[in-house]
């Protein structure tokens, strides 16, 4: 039987990041991917921008990324161009809320920076009790975050403690008027989330997005380049990446994971198994009999309802958006006319209906318009409904780019259900598990399993459902690898 130190199930970017980190430490790692290619949700068909990748990770990967502006489209043609904290009308005119927006953005980025420290290591936990050695270490680590807060100064620290648990709708509208600018910011807070901007906790998810300063990047070529870079990194570290190899189950003996069995019955042995899937799928792979009722119930109850659909339009020519310069056509284009409209777009999804006016994030590429449409229901999809969503999105784009519809030569609609089927992401959810306050940090993905470990020895989670969460960051994978090494299971 083939033997490795570690088997990683799933070659999404987090699985690859975990593999690369372990490979770099001299471990023999095998990555098994069910589908024919690597990348998972970072694949070019699904993803089109990089939001949250740290400077250091970008350098490590050696990928070439170029920063893009955001243009929030307005029906009256007063589009707003946004780059980081600066906002102006797309035609160059000054935006009345520019100063207030800059201050709000700077503050949120500053706060996000404090929280970002927490993302780069396993979440705080007190499994050994507050007075154990591990507990004291935890206190010391939290103390550092506390110190970071103190450094903000008393007034800012108070503001942090107020807004961190607040909702994006009020936090944004307390500072700026409602319109495309507020719409773009609140849409960022809830894109991919099963929440509208009025939901408490959406400032936290906005801060998560802003953890690396809130800059938005396009990959040279397509997002496939980022996935390929992760794969390259893993290969360079000596990892064996096998695609088209579905894992049937995780083999467990004496409450320890000892390897996997592939579909077809071939077994591969390892001392540790890392899974990019969600906790429930992973438990099912290992056999739910190995877990206590409470843990299984929690895994089943984990909130992961995908709300973002991906719509790819193949184009015969370049569409022209009214009121945008040539360069602005290369920006991230957002349709989110107001914070109120973003909230309204979520209402129908709650009842399994399509939005009346979807919120869109679009990127114009060579021969393609790539669109993320929110909020959509996560289940109940039929071909007719897919077509209806495609038509609705095309109609929405047409309103800003007259003539768009006549350029469309093909429409691909990927619903949350499709995304779940393609990638295995629970519920087709952007973050694999809702980034609600009840499912972040020590509670991510489920209470009692926050440290990447599951109850079966040597079995770990390394996907976006684990701390700190989704976006192409590589952090869940790298943190999981760190935890495996720290636990000494190898």
């Amino acid at each position, binding site marked *: 039987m083939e033997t490795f130190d570690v088997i990683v199930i799933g070659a999404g970017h987090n699985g690859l990041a975990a593999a690369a980190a372990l490979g770099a430490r001299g471990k023999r790692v095998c990555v098994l991917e069910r589908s024919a290619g690597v990348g998972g949700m970072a694949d070019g068909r699904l993803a089109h921008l990089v939001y949250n990748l740290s400077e250091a990770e970008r350098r490590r990967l050696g990928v070439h990324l170029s920063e893009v502006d955001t243009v929030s489209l307005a029906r009256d043609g007063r589009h707003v161009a946004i780059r980081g904290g600066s906002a102006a009308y797309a035609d160059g005119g000054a935006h009345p809320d520019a100063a207030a927006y800059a201050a709000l953005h700077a503050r949120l980025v500053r706060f996000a920076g404090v929280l970002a420290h927490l993302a780069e290591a396993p979440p705080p936990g007190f499994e050994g009790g507050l007075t154990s050695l591990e507990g004291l270490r935890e206190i010391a680590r939290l103390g550092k975050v506390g110190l970071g807060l103190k450094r903000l100064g008393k007034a800012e620290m108070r503001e942090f403690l107020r807004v961190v*648990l*607040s909702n994006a709708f009020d936090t944004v509208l307390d500072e700026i008027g409602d319109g495309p600018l507020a719409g773009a910011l609140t849409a960022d807070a809830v894109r991919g989330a099963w929440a509208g901007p009025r*939901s*408490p906790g959406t400032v936290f998810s906005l801060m998560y997005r802003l953890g690396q300063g809130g800059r938005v990047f396009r990959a040279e070529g397509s997002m496939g380049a980022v996935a390929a870079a992760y794969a390259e990194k893993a290969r360079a570290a000596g990892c064996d990446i096998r695609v088209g190899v579905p894992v049937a189950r995780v083999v467990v003996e004496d409450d320890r994971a000892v390897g996997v069995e592939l579909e077809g019955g071939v077994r591969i042995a390892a001392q540790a198994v890392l899974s990019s899937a969600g906790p429930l799928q992973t438990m099912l792979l290992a056999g739910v009999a190995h877990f206590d009722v409470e843990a299984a119930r929690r895994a089943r109850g984990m909130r992961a309802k995908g709300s973002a659909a991906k719509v790819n339009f193949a184009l015969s020519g370049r569409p022209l958006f009214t009121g945008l310069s040539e360069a602005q056509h290369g920006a991230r284009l957002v349709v989110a006319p107001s914070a109120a409209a973003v909230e309204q777009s979520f209402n129908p999804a709650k009842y399994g209906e399509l939005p009346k006016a979807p919120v869109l994030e679009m990127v114009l590429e060579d021969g393609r318009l790539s669109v993320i449409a929110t909020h959509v229901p996560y289940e109940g999809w039929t071909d007719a409904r897919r077509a209806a969503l495609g038509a609705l999105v095309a109609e929405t784009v047409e309103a800003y780019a007259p003539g768009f519809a006549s350029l469309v030569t093909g429409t691909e609609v990927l619903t949350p259900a499709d995304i779940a089927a393609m990638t295995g992401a629970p519920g087709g959810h952007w973050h694999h598990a809702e980034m609600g306050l*009840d499912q972040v940090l020590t*509670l991510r993905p489920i209470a009692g399993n*926050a440290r990447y470990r599951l109850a079966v020895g040597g079995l770990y989670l390394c996907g976006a459902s684990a701390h700190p969460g989704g976006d192409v960051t590589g952090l869940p994978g790298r943190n999981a690898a760190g935890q495996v090494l720290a636990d000494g299971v190898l």
Partner: protein
Amino acid sequence: MATHDSFDAIIAGAGHNGLTAACYLARAGLRVLVVEKNDWIGGAAVSRSLYEGWTYSNCSYVCSLLRREIVRDLDLPRFGLQVIPYEGGATFTKGGDYFAYYSDHDALRREIARHEPRDVDAYDRFSRTVIRQCRFIRPFLLRNAPDPTSLKARDLQELLFLVKRAHGLGARELAETMRFWTMSIGDFLDEHFHSPLIKAHLAGSGIIGTGLGVYSPGTAYVLLHHYMGDVDGAIGAWGFARGGMGAISKALGDCLTEAGGVIRTGAGVDRFLVKDGRVKGVALDNGDVFFAPVVASNMDVKRTFLEHTDRKHLPEDFLRGVERFKIRGSSAKLNIALDAMPSFPAAPEGAPFLKGDLHASTSLEELERAYDDWKEGRWSREPYFDMLIPSQIDPTMAPPGKHMMTVFVQYAPYDLEKSGVRSGSHWDDAARTALAECVFDKIEQAAPDIRSRVVHAEIRTPLDIEREVGLTEGNIFQGELTFDQLLFNRPVPGWANYATPVEGMFLVGSSAHPGGGVMAAPGANAAREILRRGAKRAARAA
């Protein structure tokens, strides 16, 4: 009494919190004056007779949260306060069935099993968690909220108390507690139950009085605001104050009078008098002026500082905090005089649960849609209501054989939408009547003959509640109970200890920690804070 007297302390507003604070201060030997704009005391805890023979609890209508420590301290039963527990409740479906809630555990299990056998054990898990959370939170209600940015011994001490309690839970329970505090009531119930009807019955407590939906994070915590009370030590039980909720205010008023305090009704505070950063007294809207070194406002924080205090006395960041403090009207109320007990055809003859809280919302989706209506400035097309007929238990509320019914309605916006414009002024008689008809339609789901039983009905929109009681937007909690407005953030970060930037001026209403409900905790906590500071000052002077 002359119109320019001096006192040791003046309380603006004779709501239950103002009266509670006044009682504690008077019992500590201070000469206390309470001024009230209405001709009666009680604020939102009142019993009024608007129709000959009937007594309405016009605003708040049931009692449980009133802290028993306060009842004991002030000896309120001696002043006539009697709380009679009621048992059970029910949610009626459109199809002529119901889910009944019994306080008898076995009866409840049988009723749950009738709807969904899988939910029987789930209920035990649910109530274990809720009771545990109640036990955890109760000790904090009568303490100050610690300021995590402060290094003062007192704040550190409070913080230590919190950490100790949290540590006592153990790692597992601590995680469970953090989760519970940040969850939505909808997710919490979905995790436990299968039956939509049972979920809907239990969800109401998470949204009453709030501007949140059943799927808004934080509503599981709001649920606690409805479970953490007790009647005679039975945690989570609710009761009627005999004679209506005004009985609480009357007992507090009598307690205050006996302790030498003075209550003056019929003229409210026009403005708080401030000089050199210190409060001097109050000027009433009838021209009277009273002086005191301590002035406490029972009004909500917006009303107190944005309408009755000159802005120039307040720091800019504090004002900013007050301005963005969210007080959103979301509830309406119907008080109804009935010529006979309405019939509930679905319920068995003499069913005990009819004496409890009755509802007709049958799924979480229906409740969430009700919330969506409110967000757009409409009242819910299918409103949630919490309906009780207290005269079944307390015969003093209506003439013999007749009944009084109280219907709390969620959601009704304050700023009603009309042709694209939202404004409180859109609440005219036509709108008020249309709202009532909508509620009656929904009540007919439970009691089809309700309309023929009505002899008088008082309809109170958020605007009516604001105008009469003085609660901004008619919000029953004097401010949303969301994370960003609880504990050390309530009402303004850095000012959670009842004191304000104006020296000698305090907040005693439920804009302050721990928030709303007829709990009296903000009043008692504020009085303690006032006395502590007074004692310090006296010590310094000596």
